[in-house]
């Protein structure tokens, strides 16, 4: 399918460009705008991979909630929200590590599967059945983790703590 291949190439290019821009621009607010675009783009990729529920979840949780939360964090921690970040140099150790990782990736790329795989579509109702039957324990664990995270976050920001 040439059309899907083309759509995937466009989405992949947009994902890499937006993620790189988010990390490279110097205004923190612009970073958050780029990362919002990145999340919307990933949601499009989930729709392309026949996972519409995950696409909607990505739009709601990431492009919606996480972006606003990060923007709120920027808003309350600086006097001028468009202030620029200082440029940080890259030391020799990260460069060495990056070279090492690049070598591993180049070696690993030869092991990648060639040929085409078929994308199977599932009804979202089947996902909910899996989520509440076979994979139910994971969902319970997620709920417990969220509850303890809520308690921890309130503990961290409560008044009167020096």
């Amino acid at each position, binding site marked *: 399918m040439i059309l899907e291949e083309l759509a995937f190439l466009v989405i992949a290019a947009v994902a*890499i460009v937006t993620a790189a821009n988010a*990390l490279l621009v110097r205004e923190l607010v612009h970073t958050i705008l780029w990362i919002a675009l990145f999340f919307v783009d990933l949601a499009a990729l989930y729709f392309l991979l026949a996972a519409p529920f995950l696409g909607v979840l990505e739009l709601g949780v990431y492009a919606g909630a996480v972006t606003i939360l990060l923007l709120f964090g*920027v808003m309350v921690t600086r006097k001028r929200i468009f202030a620029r970040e200082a440029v940080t140099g*890259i030391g020799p150790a990260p460069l060495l590590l990056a070279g090492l990782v690049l070598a591993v990736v180049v070696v690993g790329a030869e092991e990648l599967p060639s040929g085409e795989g078929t994308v199977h579509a599932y009804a979202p109702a089947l996902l909910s059945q899996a989520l509440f039957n076979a994979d139910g324990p994971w969902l319970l664990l*997620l709920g417990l983790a969220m509850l303890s995270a809520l308690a921890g976050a309130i503990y961290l*920001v409560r008044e009167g703590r020096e």
Partner: protein
Amino acid sequence: MSAFSPAGLLALSGALLGLGLFGILTRRNFILLLISVEIAINAAVLNFVYFAAFSGSSSALSGQAIAVVLIGLAATEVAVGLAIVLGLNRLRGSINVAEASALRR
């Protein structure tokens, strides 16, 4: 029903993981660190969705279920991270992680 080459998808998530690691290693602002971690986690979630999409077996939906759980966990991590940002800002007046060295001797 459409066909893809999985290699491109895997290369994309590898590139995104690399970008996230680059951000974690080079940025000093706590919020930028959180964003880098988010990019890296999203690369991992993408892998779960790929393999769920390409596997035809009946248990393939476990991949999507794990992706749902991971998205929830990542959102939780951002909430706790922002609580730490607020605490750090109140204690130090800055969210530069290089200045948060109270435990260092």
